[in-house]
């Protein structure tokens, strides 16, 4: 075991935890806003996947990862626009539409990939790192924590920004009102439909950015179905976090860390059966759910379409 515990190996595990956690963090932050506004955004998996596809397509076409991230945001928002149209504007069932959008995104991206990339499978070059001076020299922690792509730091900054938004601004209160008592918000002159539409579009942007991060940084390639349920894990994180962005960050890091732990245990040749090891990330989330989930309180109007004047 001692032979394995080199700086390089430990650093790679820590890096793996962060890279696996960032897409979940972005998806969870997006879902959190949607749920605050009263929209259960089951389509987030489809938004991530389309963001991953469009993000990779743009990054590869223009040889720019940054443009790729913009493409990913646009891709996520495109799917989110359909969610907003069907669920917010037309008041259709949010779960049915969400599942439909996810299945549609899976099929469409697989088809597009087949025609565009299936003969060449292009890969992006290794991602650029933003080394923070001095900090990156810290053994093990330095390269993992302070030598990552700038989007990692943007995602972490978003946690703080979202927390401030929800706690300290009128917009945060308005979002909560749209999810708790949309009729009251309407009576007070708030625009429920607009708030909910904006929240859903923001969710799409975050999910798309997370998908693009997965394709452009974590994998370096787009593969059909590559999100593999990350969007649904984002939903779970958002629900467990009870409206607190820092809890989404904690959950994402626990999940990412548990994923890296599974690798460490296997590479170390642990005698624990692989099936048990592979359960760790999910068991960790379930444990948190058991410990804290009972206190979870979801917005009163979550999942309910709003129609002015309806009883």
């Amino acid at each position, binding site marked *: *075991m001692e032979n394995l515990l080199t700086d390089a190996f430990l650093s790679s595990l820590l890096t793996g935890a962060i890279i696996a956690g960032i897409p979940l963090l972005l998806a969870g932050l997006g879902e959190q806003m949607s749920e605050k506004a009263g929209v259960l955004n089951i389509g987030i998996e489809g938004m991530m996947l389309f963001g991953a596809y469009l993000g990779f397509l743009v990054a590869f076409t223009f040889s720019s990862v940054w443009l790729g991230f913009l493409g990913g945001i646009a891709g996520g928002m495109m799917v989110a626009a359909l969610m907003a149209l069907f669920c917010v504007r037309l008041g259709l069932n949010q779960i049915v539409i969400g599942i439909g959008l996810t299945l549609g995104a899976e099929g469409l991206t697989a088809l597009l990939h087949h025609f565009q990339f299936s003969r060449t499978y292009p890969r992006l070059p290794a991602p650029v790192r933003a080394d923070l001076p001095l900090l990156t020299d810290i053994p093990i922690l330095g390269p993992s924590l302070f030598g990552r792509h700038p989007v990692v730091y943007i995602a972490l900054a978003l946690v703080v920004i979202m927390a401030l938004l929800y706690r300290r601004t009128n917009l945060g209160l308005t979002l909560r009102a749209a999810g708790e008592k949309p009729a009251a918000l309407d009576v007070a002159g708030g625009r429920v439909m607009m708030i909910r539409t904006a929240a859903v579009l923001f969710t799409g942007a975050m999910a798309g950015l997370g998908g693009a991060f997965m394709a452009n940084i974590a994998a370096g390639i787009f593969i*059909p179905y590559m999100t593999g349920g990350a969007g649904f894990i984002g939903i779970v994180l958002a629900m467990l976090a009870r409206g607190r962005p820092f809890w989404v960050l904690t959950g994402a890091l626990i999940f990412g860390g548990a994923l890296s732990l599974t690798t460490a245990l296997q590479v170390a040749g642990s005698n624990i059966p692989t099936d048990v090891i592979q359960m760790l990330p999910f068991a960790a989330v379930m444990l948190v759910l058991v410990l804290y989930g009972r206190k979870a309180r979801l917005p009163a109007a979550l999942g309910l379409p709003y129609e002015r004047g309806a009883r």
Partner: protein
Amino acid sequence: MTKFLRSIPLAAMLASSTAFGALAAEVDTIAVLTPEQGSDFGWNQQGVDAARAAAEATGVEIIVAEGLGYGDVRAPLRELAAEGADLMIAHASGYNTAAPEIAEETGVAVAIVDTPTAIKKGLIADYTLSGHEGAYLAGVLAAKMSRTGTVGIVVSGEPPSWNSQSAGFAQGVKAENADVDVLYAVIGPAAYSDAAGGNRVTTSVIAAGADIIFGQGNGSSFGMIQAVETNKATDGGDVLFIDVIGDKSSLDKGHLLTSVVWDMTPVYTAMIEDLRADTFGTKSYAISLADGSVSLLETPQVDADAWAAVMEMKDRIVAGDITVDAIFDAEEVRALVTVTE
């Protein structure tokens, strides 16, 4: 009485046609179902290509249903049965619950993978294939060419076919050089398309010292390849990749060492012939070095001397001088890899 006598030839004709039908089913259309598009240079592509080749060889029509995902495929199976398929090849281990159910429901024969216990005469066949002999040779080659003395196995799941190849690879490494460490990591329970996970896990295995990666992963293989291409080994040199099932040499950027290539055409051809001969679902199907359905890919990265030695070993396996056991159980695979106490 006259009426009775007249009916005898008719009854005899009916009886003979029924009996003939039971002995030799008419097969004019087959279908193949794959979870991803048949263009992945791996499991899905080999399945589709082999089914097309088998259809052509046996003179039957083929319906290809690709990119069906890893979820419930009962609806497409029913559709294919309704379209007239006489044999449906359900080419994913995730389909081995739904396909037998639909076979019972529709009476259309199905072929499934990784479930040898589910076979049923005339209705359900299993083709749990194993390229373990080729993987053994790949292991020998890896042990000969590793600079760091550590090689890695990265898989996106533990289906029996992959377990047997992981075991074959580990056995080959140890047979060539018992001092070489074999690291083993599974990306996830069924992470077949998890390219990000493939990249993450492979990067860690490389950081742990491996300079050659034996990767089995469908879509996630491309994440492994990306990790191999963008990371250096602990000795500062390049990392090499050993692929399975397909030939990715047209995509290679100088890191592909070899591939354990499968050709499933003989298996599918035999299934069609067995269906016609009413022996479908009565035996197992196999691929091997001997008939060329398993082979090792030569690339520019292979050392010539090492390749010559490996080919010599291949001849000894084909001749029966060396026997490579097929090990399908994941626990037994782990017993073969390096355990660091």
